[in-house]
């Protein structure tokens, strides 16, 4: 399942973040991870959480709580900018143009909260 690949990518990004502490010491723990999952991304949130629980221990992110935020699909006509949800129609009848998926297509790491030692 591709959710495992995406969790590995998430954990790689977290590894790279522990030094991004605005001049403070390296983070000692990651407390919270917020991920935005698009409804049209092809990612199943339940499976993503399962993969996260299975993989995070090996990377020492056992304390990091995962928050998943679901983002609905938004299809926009490139000509008149009218938008619809996943229910469609995906063609804009007024403009005879295909609507484009502008939101809800991807999966994003939105926010990380880390514990950083005081100096």
């Amino acid at each position, binding site marked *: 399942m591709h959710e495992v690949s995406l969790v590995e990518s998430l954990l790689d990004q977290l590894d790279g973040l522990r030094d991004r502490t605005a001049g*403070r010491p390296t983070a000692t723990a990651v407390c919270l991870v917020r991920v935005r999952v698009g409804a049209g991304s092809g990612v199943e949130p339940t499976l993503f959480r399962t993969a996260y629980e299975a993989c995070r221990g090996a990377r020492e992110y056992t304390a990091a709580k995962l928050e998943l935020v679901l983002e609905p699909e938004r299809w926009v006509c490139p000509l008149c900018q009218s938008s619809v949800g996943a229910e469609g129609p995906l063609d804009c009848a007024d403009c005879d143009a295909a609507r484009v998926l502008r939101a809800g297509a991807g999966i*994003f*790491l939105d926010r990380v909260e*880390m514990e950083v030692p005081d100096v």
Partner: protein
Amino acid sequence: MCDVCGCGTGPKATRLAVELHSSLLAGNDETASHLRAHFEAAGLSTVNLMGSPGAGKTALLEATARALGGTRRLAAVSGDLATENDAQRLRRAGIPSLAITTGTGCHLDAAMVHDALHAPALAVALEGAAFFFVENVGNLVCPALFDLGQAANVVVLSVTEGVDKPEKYPVMFRHADLVVLSKADLLPHLPEVSVAAVEASLAKVAPRTRVLPLSARTGEGVGEFVAWLDALHARTEAKSAGVPARFVSHTHPG
């Protein structure tokens, strides 16, 4: 804080929040952009071929090679969890091919394709080639998420899989530039299946995508598929105008 006895002494810590909004596919997309730049510079039309196991992806490429009769140079990689069977079939059909065995992996990603392209045998085959086919792991779900640097996606759906597959697997079919309805020679034996029914299902998730009925066995539709490939290649050549049409070998640090 002290985590030995819970006395509350020891170094204090502050919780720091970082806002990112970074795609979890960013690493793959970066490698895919690298591949696409090479493909376009070389005038190489790369097609990501996706579909269920047994849909007829390999047979489509074999039929394509037969129809082209050596008039265009082709190369391919073939993704499967195990065996080199499909790559061997393609080589027998005259398409220099390399197998990518994924073990338990359910899709190809850009790094796998990139590694394959650095294999000497494939690098030689790509010199002067017009088309590079990436036959993805048989799966209607996972491969759709991973950009491989391709110029186009072709989804192969066989007539025996059910006419409502586009609605059941919308993410895959939304990514398709062309849907090949394979094993079309079986249609007379399947009264419940029709091209119109597949088109109606596809229209609900990808209203502008064409369905091309094709039989690798009888040759029906293969000429139209070749014409579609040639139109794709004309667009690729237009992008690479003025650049010598050869695949550029290169090395990477590390």
